[in-house]
């Protein structure tokens, strides 16, 4: 739409203002994670961190700092990150999340890519139904199957194990892989495959040398999306795991009470927990739409 220079600048200003409002809780969490617990409760709050080099002396700093009146500046400390990472049982859930996310994504790709291959290049009269059925499994309300999943996991000794979580998350990711990879595979020019077949390449060669190089970006995006979904999932994790296999989502939910009073520590732990996936999402943002709609929108 044609706009005058002033209209354009006003719109840009409005866009930025609204964006900053939406983004504010994230900035605020980051700032809080750099404060001492006491500073975190100050109001009006300090907004501008000044880097300082004391880290583990957080307690001492708190002692020294007496009421001095309001300052917009505060001394940034990484002590909360140190405490969140080393003292607050963060490592175990982090490792659990990593294992569950990486392994379930890997298995989902192993199962899903061949299926997408078959559905894209050799569809038959059942393919239509299969694809729609796969969508319906992905859209199934988790609460509808949680009772039997819990009881089955209990009876198969999979309760509170990473294996149990991997089985469930693989099931969550397979339909996503099939739909996304199928949509990327359909974009591969068929002539290339036909030419290859005339030259007598095998199925594996065809995939490895003809298709893979063309769908590699799509494959990468698919893997990232599977990881984002697995990393952030809470409902299954919360009901299937306890102290042994709990992933980060469940660990963070323990700040709901009690520990929640340590908001600076909590903010640091939260930041650490979301960082990998936020960065992955930023990298994959071009393909995010395709993934979120399972390939229905590109």
């Amino acid at each position, binding site marked *: 739409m044609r706009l005058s220079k002033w209209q354009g600048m006003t719109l840009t200003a409005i866009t930025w203002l*609204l964006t900053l409002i939406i983004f504010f809780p994230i900035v605020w969490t980051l700032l809080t994670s750099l404060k001492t617990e006491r500073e975190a409760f100050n109001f009006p709050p300090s907004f501008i961190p000044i880097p300082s080099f004391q880290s583990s002396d957080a307690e001492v700093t708190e002692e020294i700092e007496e009421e001095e009146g309001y300052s917009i500046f505060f001394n940034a400390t990484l002590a909360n990150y140190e405490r969140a990472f080393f003292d607050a049982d963060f490592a175990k859930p982090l490792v659990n999340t990593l294992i569950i996310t990486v392994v379930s994504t890997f298995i989902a790709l192993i199962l899903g890519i061949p299926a997408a291959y078959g559905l894209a290049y050799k569809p038959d009269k059942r393919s239509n139904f299969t694809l729609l059925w796969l969508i*319906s499994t992905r859209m199934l*309300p988790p609460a*509808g199957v*949680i009772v039997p999943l819990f009881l089955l996991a209990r009876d198969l000794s999979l309760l509170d194990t990473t294996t149990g979580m991997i089985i469930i998350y*693989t099931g969550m990711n397979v339909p996503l892989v099939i739909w996304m990879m199928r949509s990327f595979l359909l974009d591969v020019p068929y002539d290339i495959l036909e030419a290859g077949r005339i030259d007598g390449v095998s*199925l594996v060669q065809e995939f490895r040398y003809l298709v893979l190089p063309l769908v590699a970006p799509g494959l990468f995006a698919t893997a990232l999306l599977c990881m984002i979904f697995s990393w952030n999932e809470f409902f299954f994790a919360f009901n299937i795991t306890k102290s042994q296999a709990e992933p980060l989502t469940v660990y963070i939910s323990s700040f709901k009470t009690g520990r*929640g009073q340590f908001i600076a520590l909590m903010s640091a732990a939260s930041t650490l927990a979301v960082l990998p996936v936020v960065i992955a999402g930023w990298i994959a943002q071009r393909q995010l739409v395709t993934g979120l709609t399972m390939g*229905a929108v590109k």
Partner: protein
Amino acid sequence: MIETTSVSPDSGKHKRKRGEQISDTVLRRALIWPALIYMIIVTQVPLLFTLRFSLERWNMNRPDRRGFTGLDNYLDVITDASFWTIIGNTAVLTGAVVLITFVLGLMFALLLNRNFLGRGIVRTMLITPFLIMPTVSAIVWKNVLLDPSFGFLTKLVESVGFPTPDFLGDFPMVSVIVIVVWQWMPFMMLILLAGLQSLSHEQIEASQIDGANPLHILRYIILPHLQRYIEIAVLMETLFILSIFGVIFITTSGGPGIQTTNLSYAIYDEAFSSRDIGDASTMGIYAIIVANIVVTFFVQVLRRGSEEGVTT
């Protein structure tokens, strides 16, 4: 661009070539089976169990009284007044979130569909709430922003001279809606933005020359063009919001009372607090029925796209 061939089995693009070996075709068609078998086991087996449990009287606290009761649970559940409160809560939460995220998402999509300074950064910033773990968002909103003593928003409202608000205590549903809207607005925005970017600027400029005002352009050009994108975004988001759990569990635990209990939370509560497997499974079946109604619409949207062969 919308994937138009998404559900048509043979789009004609990939016709089998004469003389190609049958065994190769068989092999390629067999590629789907490992994934399919896995999905059948992981999703349909639990589903059948839910169905079976829903026909049983079974409270884990009284395992001795377990027995087949037919459709009794189904009647018990729908004749319980609190079930209808829960259905109402689920409808209010889902409806409000979908509506508000649609309006905000469309607004941001329109704002972002032009070139301006820092557009990439703005887009990146706006999608971030969607990438953050929902449990983290919930805990940050609860403890850092809305806490009745120390929350930033609480103090902000207080400092302007209003009485100290207890957001989650006094306005639990509104607070939950605000948090979920914050998380899901980027989803709408991204899909609608993809739709807007496939709309040609010439079309809009031509109508502007014809004297159409911005509202007319929105109503008669942009919205019709976005129809399929809107349908996909709204239906998918509805399905996800219907089964939201984490935010409710962390911020309100379904309370006060059952004011913010939705169907997912009620099933969790029935299964793991009341330990009533029969009733929890029955509610699960109701949840699946509701979700399947929405899925049916979604499938129709996907079908229609492939039948019309639209190439928008």
